[in-house]
């Protein structure tokens, strides 16, 4: 099989287009998705292929078009809603959390909500505090939704196809900083299942658990730490709901040390949840408490030096691993 190298954004586009070819109930809507070809060019060419009835430009009206898509999903259509940024989803919090996530439960199993919300999550580059939200810790608190965070082009396509085929609401978190990275994506149809974490790097001394973009900082840290003789194992959680805690626990039982890297804030977060579960299931296996790396507990700063310091960067991860393995 020859390597077919494409961009992360092209992988997303392929996932949507292929699913729209096989299922007429799938359609895409959002700000600038059609005529503009996507604010980040993810939906490039889709208007030409599918026409304006299935690739739909909406006004800047997140609450309205999210609710509209949810109403359509209640009738069994399968909308893909693009948020230009998950930061803007905050004005749609009521429909996406109260309606999408709870509809099946509140209707006693009568109306499901097969919908995908997707868009950029996390800091872009000097976008300031309101445009740099990592919404995973806020939203993952809510039962009824699923949440996926792809790491590379292969997973971007495979996880998004799974999301579109899923009968539940899926929150799909992309990163603006990853859209241009390239990777191997096979020609043939494939999916990546939810709830199956992947070991991105094998190691013996410390397990690093992360999701999405911070995994790249984890890789850099692992290279740095290897020079110091610390052998890191990196686990890509891939999905937050469902969370594949088994793979994480198996790794920690082997390494006896764990660092969780989560790009959202620390208080009541994905990081605190994963750490809590590792403490519970690996209580007798841990040589130290689980160390956590987050964005600093402040609004995202604009200034480049402050923003770099604020993110869960390589330096912070190295320090946490050294701490967790008593190599300080």
């Amino acid at each position: 099989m020859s390597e077919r190298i494409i961009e992360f954004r092209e992988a997303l586009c392929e996932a949507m287009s292929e699913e729209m070819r096989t299922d007429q109930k799938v359609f895409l809507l959002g700000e600038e998705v059609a005529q503009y070809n996507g604010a980040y060019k993810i939906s490039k060419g889709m208007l030409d292929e599918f026409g304006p009835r299935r690739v739909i430009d909406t006004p800047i009206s997140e609450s309205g078009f999210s609710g509209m898509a949810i109403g359509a999903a209640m009738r069994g259509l399968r909308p893909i809603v693009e948020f230009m940024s998950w930061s803007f989803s905050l004005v749609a919090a009521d429909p996406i959390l109260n309606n999408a996530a709870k509809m099946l439960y509140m209707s006693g199993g009568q109306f499901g909500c097969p919908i995908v919300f997707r868009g950029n999550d996390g800091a872009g580059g000097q976008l300031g505090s309101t445009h740099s939200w990592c919404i995973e810790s806020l939203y993952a608190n809510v039962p009824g939704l699923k949440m996926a965070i792809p790491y590379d082009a292969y997973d971007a396509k495979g996880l998004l196809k799974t999301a579109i085929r899923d009968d539940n609401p899926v929150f799909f978190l992309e990163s603006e900083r990853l859209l241009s990275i390239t990777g191997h994506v096979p020609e043939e149809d494939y999916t990546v299942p939810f709830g199956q974490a992947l070991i991105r790097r094998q190691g013996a001394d410390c397990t690093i658990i992360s999701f999405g973009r911070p995994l790249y900082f984890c890789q850099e840290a692992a290279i740095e730490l290897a020079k110091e003789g610390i052998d890191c194992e990196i686990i890509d959680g891939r999905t937050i709901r469902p969370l594949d805690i088994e793979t994480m626990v198996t790794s920690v039982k082997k390494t006896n040390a764990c660092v969780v890297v989560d790009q959202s804030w620390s208080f009541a977060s994905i990081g605190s949840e994963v750490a809590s579960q590792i403490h519970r299931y690996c209580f007798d296996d841990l040589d130290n408490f689980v160390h956590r790396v987050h964005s600093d507990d402040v609004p995202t700063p604009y200034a480049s030096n402050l923003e770099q310091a604020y993110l869960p960067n390589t330096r912070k991860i190295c320090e946490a691993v050294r701490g967790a393995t008593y190599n300080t």
Partner: protein
Amino acid sequence: MDKLDTELKKTCIDSRHLQLEKAPLPESGILIGWLRQMLLIREFEVRTMQAYQNRLIGGFCHVYIGQEAVAVGSIASLNLDDPIVLAYRCHGHALVRGMDPKYCMAEMFGRIGGCAKGKGGSMHMFDAPHHLYGGHGIVGAQTPLGTGLAFATKYEDEVLEDGKSSHVTLCYLGDGALNQGAFYEAMNLAGLFNLPVIFVLENNRYSMGTSIERGTTMANELHTKSDAHGIEHAIVDGKDVLSLYQSFKSIVDWCRTESRPFFVEAQTYRYKGHSMSDPRKYRTQEEEAREDEVDCIARLEKFLCQEHDVTPDGIKQLTRQVKTQVREAVEWAKESPETPMEELYKDVYVDHWGPFTGTSKPQMMQDEPQ
């Protein structure tokens, strides 16, 4: 009310760019059916209040007494497969749409026999076989959903079936929702995308304890709200089921043909408080007494006796029938078992994973399959 009187004297609906002839009334058998529906709602709500006071119903509970004509007359103008979506004062619409009162009552009792297996409660009546997409508890939140239901029927008709849009969605809201942003986004999208949705404003003049004049700008010219979105409008008497139906039928037919939205203000009054805990100190007894005099049920009874050979005895018989029906619904709800513990983790996700045990349909759908 002067303005309403002027509107009602007309035989046509005058909107901004549109004049519609009001539809004729159906034959008397159907009108008697409407009376029966209105009597059923009132009796149901009286027994709901009793059950609430007897602590058989918990949480928030909002009754529809006084507004019955709106649900009856508007839903009568729809096809059976046209979608409906509602706010939280939703018992009456569910009954009119065809939900057996026993499932509605059992839902409020929090029993497994409820339309949502006791998981939704008073504010959240859902009935898939009857195309009822829920009562919704957050004020205004149902309006984008209504836009979405209309989007879906249009998409189904035009994209999936390659035909012409042929459904109309009724999306109800109270006057409190007039001040929520979601409603304006919903109207904008409906206007922009030519969606066949009718926003039915049930203006009962109070959002909880705040009179419309205290909460809404342009309270006497609410059509300005829809005008701003290029949406046609009509004002109807929410206490006169006959004229309300005549207007609605024309409007529904127009929306179906044109695939366009509409905004209808039904002027009505809720006789009871906002919810069961409301002592109604924000309005006078004189005002309530004045509204009581123009009761929608009494008006229809009078009309039927004068124009359609209905007798007071015939009405008594109808009343007895609905009393029996509601009494049986209450008994059925009481006997329905408490929602079992295994339901706690059901219907969270469609599929099984972790502690979640998939989904299942309520008894209502097994009894009355689609």
